[in-house]
């Protein structure tokens, strides 16, 4: 199955934050940063769901 492309709409400030994060070595480029965010966010929610099945909100 072909990849699904989602087009994020981001302003220059949001891109600046992403680029500074990338410059710190977190991910090689913007799209990779989004995919990393997705993987880690989903993994955290999955772990939470096991612990608290009715609460998908992050614990702050």
């Amino acid at each position, binding site marked *: *199955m072909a*990849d*699904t*492309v*989602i*087009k*994020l*709409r*981001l*302003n*220059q*400030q*949001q*891109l600046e*934050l*992403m680029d500074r*994060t990338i410059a710190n070595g977190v991910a090689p480029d*913007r*799209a990779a*940063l*989004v*995919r990393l*965010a*997705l*993987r*880690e*966010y*989903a993994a*955290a*929610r*999955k772990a939470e769901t096991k612990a608290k099945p009715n609460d*998908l909100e*992050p614990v*702050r």
Partner: protein
Amino acid sequence: MSERRVLFEHILEPGTGKGIELLKGQILRIEQVEGGQCADFNCFNLHDYKEFMHCGRTRTVHGFHPSKGTFMWSAPPRERAMLYILEDTVGRNDVLFPRCSAYVYEASYGFAVHTNCHDIQAEAQREYGLTPDDVHDSFNLFMCTGVDQDGHAYMTRQTTKAGDYVDLLALMDVLAVPNICGADVMRTSNFALKPLKLTVFAATEADLARVPKTPTLKSQRTPKDFRNPTIKSDRPLRRDPAYKPEFPNTPIRITELPVALSEEELAAFNAVKRTDIYGEDDAAALRDLLFSWWEERFLQAHAGAPSIESE
């Protein structure tokens, strides 16, 4: 450890307030004489009264009940730590409630004149040339408050005893203005007006060593950074015909960032995306996810509050 040196003592009588020049490195102790008395408190940069304590910022950083180990911050764009709460024997103060005012006592109780925190503050601040409009949102010491399940703030009686105190350490030269809360027909001070004792100490090295470091940032601007550094000296507002807006980072420009998701990634996204908020707008949901993740992974302080190094 060396002893603190007493520099000034004053009994704050019911119905009164007092402006105190509290210099950097000095401690103001506000102490219960009989117990059960709320103190309202204002604070200004002694050298620039336009910098003043900001309860809104303080409550965001430290919550509704600032106590030992927290700071009192000045308003944007200064946003500097003005005071540090070095000691607090009770641990129940308030930055939710506004100061009580003459309006409250007239509207709710029918008083033509009644002691009230706004007017007491204004009268105390007049000693330093300030006007009633300069009184700002109050830090309410010893005031016992909370928020009910419907989101309304409430106050209850307090349990403070004689000798309970809060020590405020000045991190800059300030005009500190405590006053005896004027509320004797409310629960604030257990339905009576009582004195409070004020003591100013010179902080010891040990006191100063207890203050956590706070960040120094470019965004903490002072009048030298303002496009208009001149304090307006008349009351009417008139448009400046030469005004040209210079809002930062404008115009806001939108860029599209295509992100290709594999089948597995798409499944993960579909499992967590916030359709309750974004419906079918996957781009908005993925943007939310991106910055929610960023907050979780990188943001050190609650609600965007300044980071503070722990002791």
